[in-house]
């Protein structure tokens, strides 16, 4: 196990380096520097500024400086938001994304698994179709269609909830965004759970349990649930990652001040350092979460050798 973990950790380094390098080069291939503004800056001031941000050095030295500051956990200064470092901006945005995305993934796990079990137990019946129809809403419509529709129904039509915005983790503002993410996630979780549950229920040890005369409830919860959850574990990782770090559409639809909104605003304002910093950060989070999921999978599934 330890050598497997070690190898997996080592294998993430080239990925991270490649992403950072490519993004950094992309950033520097584009014409225009950070101080090419409308206002003319005198040559002496410009030279000082460039020296301060190491812009007078050759590219590879600038790159090494960037890597060094990354290793110290510093994502640099924002081009557009004066007096804000990228770290400050991320510090404000990350809790929002984590609350919405994390909450949504926990809820969708429960709902998705429940739907999958119900559908699997009544395979090919009316209940199965209805449950899967409900589960597939999020899979059938793109999130940027489903999001506005949710707003239309629950905020504008029924006036139950606010159409968007954010008020310091007030639950009212979190319900619709989380509902959208839950809809998207349960379509995958439900489908995977239904398939694996049907497969497990058809296996020999379940037949044995039935032959012993165990009630269906015990069979499902005590015997079938654990093996049937294994495929769900493997999809929950990517779903959690995309719910937290890439909920760009959700945060745009509902105007939430999270990571996704930050990166879209950064892109619209051409705030290069902010976008680059966010991409690097999210890549690191993604790679680390992927690693954890892989390790968890290896721990949980006795069939996997490492």
């Amino acid at each position, binding site marked *: 196990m330890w050598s497997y973990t070690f190898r997996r950790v080592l294998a993430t380094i080239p990925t991270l380096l490649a*992403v950072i390098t490519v993004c950094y080069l992309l950033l520097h291939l584009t014409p225009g520097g950070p101080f090419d503004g409308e206002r003319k800056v005198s040559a002496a001031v410009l030279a000082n500024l460039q020296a301060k941000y190491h812009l007078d050095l050759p590219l590879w030295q600038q790159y090494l400086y960037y890597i060094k500051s990354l290793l110290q956990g510093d994502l640099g200064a924002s081009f557009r938001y004066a007096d804000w470092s990228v770290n400050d901006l991320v510090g404000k945005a990350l809790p929002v994304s984590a609350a919405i995305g994390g909450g949504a993934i926990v809820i969708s796990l429960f709902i998705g698994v429940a739907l999958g079990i119900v559908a699997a137990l009544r395979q090919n019946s009316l209940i199965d179709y209805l449950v899967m129809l409900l589960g597939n809403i999020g899979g*059938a419509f793109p999130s*940027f269609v489903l999001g506005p529709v949710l707003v239309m129904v629950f905020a504008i039509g029924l006036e139950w909830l606010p159409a968007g915005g954010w008020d310091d983790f007030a639950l009212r503002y979190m319900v619709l965004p989380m509902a959208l993410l839950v809809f998207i996630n349960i379509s995958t979780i439900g489908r995977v759970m239904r398939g694996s549950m049907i497969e497990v229920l058809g296996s020999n040890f379940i037949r044995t349990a039935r032959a012993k005369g165990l009630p269906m409830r015990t069979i499902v919860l005590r015997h079938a649930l654990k093996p049937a959850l294994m495929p769900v574990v493997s999809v929950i990782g990517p779903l959690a990652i995309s719910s937290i770090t890439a909920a*760009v559409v959700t945060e745009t639809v509902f105007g939430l001040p999270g990571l996704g909104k930050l990166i879209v605003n950064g892109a619209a304002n051409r705030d290069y350092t902010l976008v680059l910093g966010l991409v690097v950060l999210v*890549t690191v989070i993604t790679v680390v979460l992927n690693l954890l999921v892989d390790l968890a999978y290896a721990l949980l599934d006795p069939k996997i050798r490492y």
Partner: protein
Amino acid sequence: MMQSKQKAMTAALDNSLADAAVEGRSLWRDARVRFFRNKAAVLSLIVLALITLACIFGPMVLPHTYEDTDWDAMGIAPTLANTHWFGTDALGRDLLVRCLIGGRISLMVGALATIASVALGIVWGATAGFMGGKVDSLMMRIVDMMYAVPYLLIAILMVTLLGRDFYLVVLTITVFSWMDMARVVRGQTLAIKSKEYVEAAHAIGVSTPKIIFRHIVPNLLGIVVIYTTVTVPGVILTESVLSFLGLGVQEPMTSWGVLIQDGAGVMDASPWILLFPAGLLSVTLYCANYIGDGLRDALDPKDR
């Protein structure tokens, strides 16, 4: 009695054998028959063809253009009274024409990015599969890396840096859509490479290029077609997401994602501006998925 019956049966069997010999059934013919038996897939194909034709020819015959304001009809609801059948947006532009023009962009990005990523995926996967060894593992490591990357964010970064030109959007989408194809093609190539008939071809002295084109490429085609149809909806969706976020093609040019974004902003006052493009996009994605399922069922050799 018994004998004559047996004779008749033998004759019938001979006849059917003869028929079979005359009428060879290729994989593709079988697949076509199976595909057209699938009603959902055929219906989807018809609907998608109609949408495509409407997007191509609609703007040519309709009396409005996608960028001109009709000062007498700004933000009106869908109506049969004048020629604004889908209504107009807040600037008085005919929504039907804008939906069709947007469809042109969305479908064209879909087609171009699919062709590009499929080509890249086939070349990458086939090369890795044929070469094997170190080249193979290096190339597949790169594919793994691409999977680990948060592609939407990097797509946003690329569009930010490179600009919002139509072809750059296509390029950006392509860069993140070819990996599935590469993996599948590599796997299939490896599998075919070790098949007996390839070995036999080698043994009787068929040249390598001829083996590739005569034995390996035709056997790759099925799986390539299947994965191409899986790629199309994904690519169209990615373009729409980029457009929705304001990073796609620029005004007054439009695409379904842009239209949906416009509509989402004014949906309390004029919901049709959201519903028409959203409906068109959803129907298109649905059709693409059903056609993909139909092709998979038709071409999957395991499913005989």
